[in-house]
């Protein structure tokens, strides 16, 4: 038996208000969680980037320290080469000075250049020529000069002149300067 002429209306919990509310809730929660996820993602990226940058920094540090070692080595090589070249040039001048020092009237038969001295052997017409023309300049250069003579076959004199520079005196002079 029917009591009503109209059909019954279906009642639902999801009314229009509720739907609106759910949409609002969803959007709010979505925004909150997406912000949270964004922060987590950025933090992950930062930590990854930091690791990479730290590794790059270590690599750069190693590269710089290697290059510094190479620079030091080149500087040492350069100093050594300059010293050796100067030493050779000074030696050339010393030999040249030695040969210029000997007057034409005296003939050298042997010369030995030492680190701190000079030994000369040769012949001289007489002691005076030797004393004035060779011994005098040698005395002005060296601290100690020793000469010995013995007769040669042609009436001239063979001489051996040994000359030394005292290193200590040299160093003292440098200290005073």
């Amino acid at each position, binding site marked *: 038996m029917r009591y009503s002429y109209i059909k019954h209306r279906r009642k639902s919990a999801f009314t229009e208000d509720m739907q609106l509310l759910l949409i609002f809730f969803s959007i709010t929660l979505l925004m909150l969680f997406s912000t949270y996820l964004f922060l987590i993602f950025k933090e992950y990226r930062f930590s990854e980037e930091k690791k990479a940058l730290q590794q790059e920094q270590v690599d750069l540090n190693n590269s710089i320290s290697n290059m510094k070692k190479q620079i030091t*080595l080149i500087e040492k090589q350069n100093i050594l080469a300059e010293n050796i070249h100067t030493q050779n040039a000074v030696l050339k001048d010393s030999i040249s000075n030695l040969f210029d020092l000997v007057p034409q009237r005296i003939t050298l038969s042997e010369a030995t250049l030492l680190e701190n001295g000079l030994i000369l052997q040769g012949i001289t017409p007489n002691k005076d020529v030797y004393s004035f023309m060779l011994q005098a300049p040698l005395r002005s250069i060296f601290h100690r000069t020793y000469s010995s003579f013995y007769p040669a076959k042609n009436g001239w004199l063979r001489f051996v002149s040994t000359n030394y520079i005292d290193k200590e005196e040299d160093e003292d002079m440098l200290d005073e300067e």
Partner: protein
Amino acid sequence: MKSKGLSRQNIYIMVASLLLLILVLSFSFLVLIPKGKEYRIKRSDIIKVRKEVSRFEKFNSDTLSLLKKLQSDNRYTITALTTPFSEDRFLKQHKKYFNTLILSKRVVSEKEGVFLTYDVNTSSKISSPKSIYDFLDAINKSDWIIGVNFPIKFKREGDTIYSTFSMKVYETDKKDSNNSK
């Protein structure tokens, strides 16, 4: 008469809104804000690291250009100090200054810092001291770094001068040069 009080549905909506508000506020204060602070700290930290790395990159590039400049300016010295000494090649290059030139086998001498040294004794015949001057000029331009050492002996026999002297050849120790690469 209709009741003026809140309907049940309105009460649901109000309760749900209140819950949402509590959820939003607690999530924000307990999670989002601390996370945001952490993010800001990490961001400023990464900016610092980036600056530091770029400073290192600049220094690296400056050091590299300095190294390249030194390498190109001192190419002769570097090559001369890494070339192994060859008696044959030395004779080929320098025999022209002497009437005869004889070299002894090179003998390993003491190490001077990062440099290995070899002693080579020479005996030669020359016709005038000029040969020695030319030789000493040429040795400074040779393929090796060579120092002529004392004692140097000259002995005259007729028109010929016999000379004997020792030379020190310098070479960079490969261990040290490899360590610095």
